[in-house]
């Protein structure tokens, strides 16, 4: 048997013999995992609730854009103080009137502390617990979807939702920004000027970083979701944890702990607007998110694969 044949055998599970791997195929096909993921995505994104969450996220940049427009229509360019929603966040908002692209950064800075993670918390918290609550989990498991694979498909779906949610905010902000404000070259935080194309690229990069910043919350929500059979309880717990951590992050006495809060480095995405880009905090942020994903992902796996499904 040639080497090529051996490889072939290993990769294609169904009978390598001339015998037709028939239709009522009883062999699992590795692409099936993607079929499960696709089904998962279709199910998630056809929910009215998911669409409502995305609608709320899309509305935030519209509100911010209109508010800035009204605020500055009397001629006072820049707005008072320009403290974006994010506390320590950079004053992107004061630049919005000069360049609509800044509305993208502003909108992400406004939604990242609460709206985005809340939406993730709802989707992640409901992912397993909601199915358990509806009883559909038992039918998925006897199908048999496989506990590990189902969990992976769920986590992948939540991550994709993170990306979609962030892009919804970004695209909505870009549209509103283009409609209400001029577009063109922009000034970075460091004071240098970059072209609009370069600016768009950075906006996309920022959106990706923001989406990645949410993977920690997503893993946390997934873990909480494996603990209970009530979707509402899981969602509430996840969002509650999110708010608690945000509050603790503001208490100076806890500064020793704060670097380990998943939200601590969230606003570091602004560093992508520096020239040259300042990577330190970004790296810390992404590393922390990976740590959360690993820890809570493993916890979710350990819990879900051993749990008695009684609902």
């Amino acid at each position, binding site marked *: 048997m040639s080497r090529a044949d051996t490889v*072939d055998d290993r990769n*294609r599970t*169904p*009978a*390598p013999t001339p*015998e*037709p*791997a*028939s*239709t*009522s*195929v*009883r*062999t*699992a*096909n*590795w*692409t*099936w995992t*993607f*079929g*499960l*993921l*696709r*089904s998962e995505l*279709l*199910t998630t994104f*056809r*929910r*009215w609730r998911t669409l409502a969450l995305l609608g709320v996220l899309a509305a935030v940049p519209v509100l911010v854009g209109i508010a800035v427009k009204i605020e500055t229509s009397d001629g006072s360019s820049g707005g008072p103080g320009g403290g974006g929603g994010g506390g320590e966040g950079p004053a992107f908002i004061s630049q919005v009137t000069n360049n609509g692209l800044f509305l993208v950064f502003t909108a992400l800075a406004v939604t990242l502390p609460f709206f985005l993670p809340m939406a993730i918390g709802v989707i992640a918290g409901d992912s397993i617990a909601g199915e358990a609550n*509806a*009883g*559909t989990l*038992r*039918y*998925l*498991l*006897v*199908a*048999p*979807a*496989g506990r590990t694979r*189902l969990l992976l498909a769920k986590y992948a779906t939540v991550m994709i939702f993170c990306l979609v949610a962030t892009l919804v905010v970004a695209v909505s902000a870009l549209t509103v920004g283009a409609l209400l404000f001029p577009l063109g070259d922009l000034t970075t935080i460091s004071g240098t000027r970059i072209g609009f194309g370069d600016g768009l690229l950075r906006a996309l990069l920022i959106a990706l970083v923001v989406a990645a910043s949410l993977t920690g919350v997503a893993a946390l929500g997934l873990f909480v979701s494996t603990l209970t059979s009530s979707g509402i309880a899981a969602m509430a717990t996840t969002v509650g944890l999110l708010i608690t951590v945000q509050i603790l992050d503001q208490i100076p006495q806890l500064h020793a702990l704060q670097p380990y809060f998943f939200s601590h480095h969230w606003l570091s995405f602004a560093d992508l607007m520096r020239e040259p880009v300042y990577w330190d905090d970004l790296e810390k942020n992404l590393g922390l998110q990976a740590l959360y994903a690993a820890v809570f992902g493993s916890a979710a796996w350990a819990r879900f694969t*051993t749990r*008695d*499904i*009684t609902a």
Partner: protein
Amino acid sequence: MGEPAREPVREPVPESVRMPVPESAGVPVPEPVREPVPEPVRVPVPEPVRVPVTESVRVPVDDGAVIHTRGLTKRYRGGQLAVDGLDLTVPAGSVFGFLGPNGSGKTTTIRMLMGLIEPTAGSARVLGQPMPRAARAVLPHVGTLIEGPALYGFLSGRDNLLRYDAADPTADPRTRRARVSATLERVGLTAAAGKKAKAYSLGMKQRLGLAAALLQPRRLLVLDEPTNGLDPQGMREIRSLIRELAAEGTTVFLSSHLLDEIEQVCTHAAVMAQGRLLVQGPVADLAAGTRGRLVVTTPDPADAARVLKEQGADDVVLGEDRVSAEAPPPDRDLADLNAALVSAGVRVRGFAVERASLEDAFVALTGEGFDVAG
């Protein structure tokens, strides 16, 4: 994503969407040596389609048992013993009725068999393989309806089935739509297939749940209360469906509260109470275990009762115009009893032995009928 994998070139096989192809219609396979020497069981399939012998089909049949448990026990975390040392054997090809009052541990047993709950002690083999360890190989051959249907209310009936089918690793995505349509047809839901499942009536949900169990040809169907919520017509349809499936060689494991339903469709039955298995075996034997009642219809019940007692009948019950007693042992000729009655001047209108129903057997066993176990 989405498109099926590029398979090694294979000619399109004529697709059969007719439902369950019995894969092992009672093929007796010699008990294999425990060390898995993979002796492939080649099973005849009455379709132009040849089922490839794969790991999952290579199921050693445990002396013909489709389900076999030994000392299966589940103690919940609260300390409550839900199932206590269950030794259950479900023969291949049987329609097996699983009876018991509410709270007797039936559902816990089914969940352990399906790998949803880890047993505290004991072992369970389904289709000859250990559960829950071999769940991936076993479950594609098992269709289930556990504790009623569970559906995605915001999806249509058809989309619900597509979703469940996508969760089955052995389900071919290329035939998915055809199989779903055929199954909807089979359970009589074609007209309502596009409606959102939350608008379904209980009976329709039950049918859709059943459809999900029938998406693939199955070797075993586990149906927990399948006629719940159905109208009489629906119940009859389900019963005939079960008979049809059984005739095709599918083993059906049916839990139900409706004793006459079990009696009508089941070949075997087991009775549970308070987590323990009281009895199991062919339905005819179970009912035979309880003796029938001798019923004498007469205008002279008091005299009849006296004569029967004189003749040694036990448990004589006096009625308005009838007397019943425990049927005499088989060695006693009933004609002699009748002659004794007549010669004592008792006018006899009717004289018959009523065969014990499964319900009698059940009440005799559990001593309580169908009350919730404390």
